């Protein structure tokens, strides 16, 4: 029995696998390890979280304040644009729109300044 036991041990110890571990497994494991190490996680829909945060009642005060600030800024900028584009009337001695007409016919120029 002792010899048989030794034979079993010998047979099992000398037994070799007809193949090796697939090298692709090691690469996959390394990628997974690197991913986990950086605390990255993959989600099926990465936009879901953002939309959920936008439309949820959480932080409603901050969201309302942000919207109010955006609207106020919009109104103020619109108003300031109108102020700068107002036409201002000024008097001058110079002749404006002085035109030279290249024509043989007499042109009636309705103007008080010459």
């Amino acid at each position: 029995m002792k010899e048989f036991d030794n034979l079993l041990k010998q047979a099992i110890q000398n037994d070799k696998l007809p193949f090796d571990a697939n090298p692709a497994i090691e690469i996959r494991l390394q990628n997974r390890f690197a991913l986990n190490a950086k605390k990255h996680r993959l989600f099926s829909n990465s936009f879901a979280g953002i939309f959920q945060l936008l439309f949820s009642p959480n932080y409603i005060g901050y969201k309302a304040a942000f919207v109010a600030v955006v609207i106020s800024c919009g109104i103020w900028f619109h108003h300031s644009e109108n102020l700068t584009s107002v036409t201002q009337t000024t008097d001058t001695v110079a002749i404006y729109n002085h035109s030279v007409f290249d024509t043989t016919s007499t042109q009636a120029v309705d103007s008080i300044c010459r």
Partner: protein
Amino acid sequence: MKLRKTQYKKLSDEKLMQLISNANMKAFNELYGRYKQRLLYYFYRMLGSSQEKAQDFLQDIFMKIIDNPESFDTKRKFSTWIFSVAHNMCKNEYRRLEVRKAVTLDEQTDSFADIFNDNQLDLNNFTNQLYNELNKLDEAHRTAFLLKYREGFKIKEISKALNCSEGTVKSRLFYTVKKLSQKMECYRNTCT
């Protein structure tokens, strides 16, 4: 902790697991290198000599380590822990399959006995015959046998890995060897 590649080789499995918990990839590579062949062999022999399954299970067990390294209690011995995880994976697989395919193995046994009519002991044939007989036993006996004869585990370590008493392990080993010696009587005669 920054270490050179050669220094990782000197570290114990348990220390490597600690480093893996701290996201040290070199420690993981070292541990994978140490255990890939051992686990591959274990899965191959436990899962009906299926090469594909052995590769898949090897990947799965290391994925478990990567995803949850904290599940390993550093006070325990790593080798017994990893083989207990491997054993549980095999048990789950058996449950999934429910029925083991022993019929095909029975057919092989008869033809195999003819090779040994001249009582010439060929270790390769002996090993094949051994696994044919071993596959007919249930997974608990097979695991105990592999851990003892292949991995060289002590009875205490096997009992920890399989989560059973030392007496149960001894009984399983005794039964397995006795069964094998009965089934492989032609080889036993050549030994005596």
